[in-house]
């Protein structure tokens, strides 16, 4: 099963002719992902190592039936690219680009998720799943890799992983794989102020996924995503969750690279997040190695 990307993924890369888009797009293809098209306005009709390039996503979808897009275009054009993918009927839009202005994302994410009313934060109302921006993408080991997560560290298995931090995805997957704990899907949701998906969106997908037996969530200081996830887990999650929170020793009020990673008052500290999660029955590891140990323990119990 897995979530978000799998063997049915037909990928179009927006920005496939760029340096990074090409490198990672072809790397994803080499992994086995069904890369069917690239889009670069004005380069329609050309190809990248046999992958056809189109001028618009609409044309790519119409010709190749692409259902998933990876957005690798520069920040000033990225929100427009996301909206283009949505308009063209793409269901899963994974944005790797870092440094997209929050206003652009607010407009695009708000539009695509639908305006909704109360509870809009709890589930995506819209037709499409957005992941990112400023994220490492999504890998379902053995099925498809869309993004920049190093597939070498991953193994297929029953553990779902969702993380705000990119390199912590790699670190935790590494720890899991070393203990032969394979992954159903690893999802980097990114740490930007306006994320396309948050913990709850991804947890609810894992909850419904047949392959996933346990979920590891990796949070960090700033915002209250982890606290809201804790509430949601308590009310809805039927599978065990193990968590890791980075930033226990981060000084209050210092920016740690992610716009979201600013401690705001008492909520938003690693401490508060860990406590909220533990109160919801989640085991919280103190370091990545301990997380893998807790997973073993949770599966044994």
């Amino acid at each position, binding site marked *: 099963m897995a979530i978000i990307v799998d063997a049915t993924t037909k990928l179009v890369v927006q920005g496939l002719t760029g340096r990074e888009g090409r490198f990672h797009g072809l790397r994803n293809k080499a992994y086995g992902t069904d890369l069917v098209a690239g889009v670069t306005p004005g380069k329609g009709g050309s190809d990248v190592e046999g992958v056809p390039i189109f001028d618009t996503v609409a044309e790519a979808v119409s010709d190749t039936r692409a259902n998933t897009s990876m957005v690798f275009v520069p920040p000033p054009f990225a929100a427009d690219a996301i909206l283009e993918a949505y308009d063209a009927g793409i269901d899963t839009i994974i944005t790797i680009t870092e440094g997209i*202005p929050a206003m652009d994302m*607010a407009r695009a994410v708000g539009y695509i998720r639908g305006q909704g009313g109360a509870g809009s934060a709890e589930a995506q109302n819209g037709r499409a799943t957005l992941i990112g921006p400023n994220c490492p993408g999504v890998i379902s080991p053995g099925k498809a890799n869309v993004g920049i997560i190093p597939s070498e560290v991953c193994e297929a298995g029953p553990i779902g992983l969702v993380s705000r931090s990119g390199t912590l995805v790699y*670190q935790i997957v590494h720890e899991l794989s070393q203990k032969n704990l394979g992954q159903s899907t690893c999802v980097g949701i990114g740490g930007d*102020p306006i994320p396309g998906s948050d913990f709850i969106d991804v947890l609810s997908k894992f909850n419904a996924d047949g392959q996933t037996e346990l979920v590891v969530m990796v949070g960090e200081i700033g915002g209250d995503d982890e606290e809201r996830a804790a509430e949601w887990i308590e009310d809805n999650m039927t599978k065990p969750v193990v968590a890791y929170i*980075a930033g226990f*020793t981060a000084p209050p009020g210092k920016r740690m690279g992610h716009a979201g990673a600013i401690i705001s008052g008492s909520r938003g500290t690693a401490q508060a997040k860990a406590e909220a999660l533990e109160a919801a029955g989640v085991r919280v590891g103190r*370091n990545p190695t301990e997380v893998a140990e807790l997973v073993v323990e949770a599966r044994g119990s």
Partner: protein
Amino acid sequence: MDLFEYQGKELLRRFEVPVPEGRVASNPAEAAAAAEGLGSKVVVKAQVQVGGRGKAGGIKVAESAGEAREVAEQILGMDIKGHTVKRVLVERAGDIKEEYYLSFLVDRSERKFLGMMSAEGGVEIEQVADENPDAIARVHVDPSLGISDFHARKLVFGAKLNPAARKGAIAMIPKLYRAFVELDASLVEINPLVLTGDGKVVALDAKVTVDDSADYRHPNFGELRAAHEVPEQERLAKEKGLNFIKLDGDIGIIGNGAGLVMATLDVVKAAGGDAANFLDVGGGAGADVLSNAIEVITSDDNVKSIFLNIFGGITRGDLVAEGIIDALGRLDVTIPIVVRLDGTNAEEGRKMLADAPHAMLHAEDTMLGAAKRAVDLAGGAGSAGPPGGGGA
């Protein structure tokens, strides 16, 4: 970037948000000239990015240009909670009848903009939120819809504003919202918003935080940024494309990705050490970036050991090794560097380091092992125990 009050007000004025007439001054003579130009009673306000400047004596009234010069002399150079006052804002003094609170910010959880208003202004809004939460009216604005008049009414009537201030506030709110959006702000906060004796509603203070990612479409942000002082080491790091923050410990930290660097800080703390800094080389760093990072850290005399923690994704282990070797070659490195390298091309990188031994270079296989080693090499554990929080 957090703007200074005078910068925020200057920008808000362009969106027709009413702010008091005023000029910025960086010396007493300029302050006197500003007061002269305004030709009335003025307020001289320290330009520092920290709360409580009024209580600290950073805000003073002056009846004349001469008096403005005197108070500016007192305020300039003052230290307010660790911030040195480099500039004052000289503003026309008004007759304040009431003080309110008004702000717009990005609400991450709702993915919308949140407007907040309170008839209780001039105090910390967190305090109002704690003591009298019903006194804060809130309204969410959908970014794709934008502001409509009802949003303004919902704030103003919801906050039970004095009827005399309604019209002015309802007219101002959409302007402030437009400023918020068009400035790519993540926060605009007016505290206090005041009702003047002649019935006007005016932004007496302004806290504006703008999104650095949007710099490219705001050519003036560079100029605004120039007014901000940054510690020398951070400035240097930024020039080299590194995300660097100085901390108080003695173990230098280098990693890729903010999350991994934060986790590294945590394991160092758990191992009994204290980080000297936060340094994120970002994604896809090449050899030069790594070499620069080592240079920045080793230039700090407080650093007793370095923990270099890389898990390659876009970042390639071979390039990391190349950067380390380069740094060790061109710099006189006299403090130990503990390297933990995993991920993309890590094997190649580890082999390259093994092939180029250096007295100060120590390889470790795991994050925990590397943290302990770095703490040991720095001279053993300090005061810290494991980080707080309930255990598993």
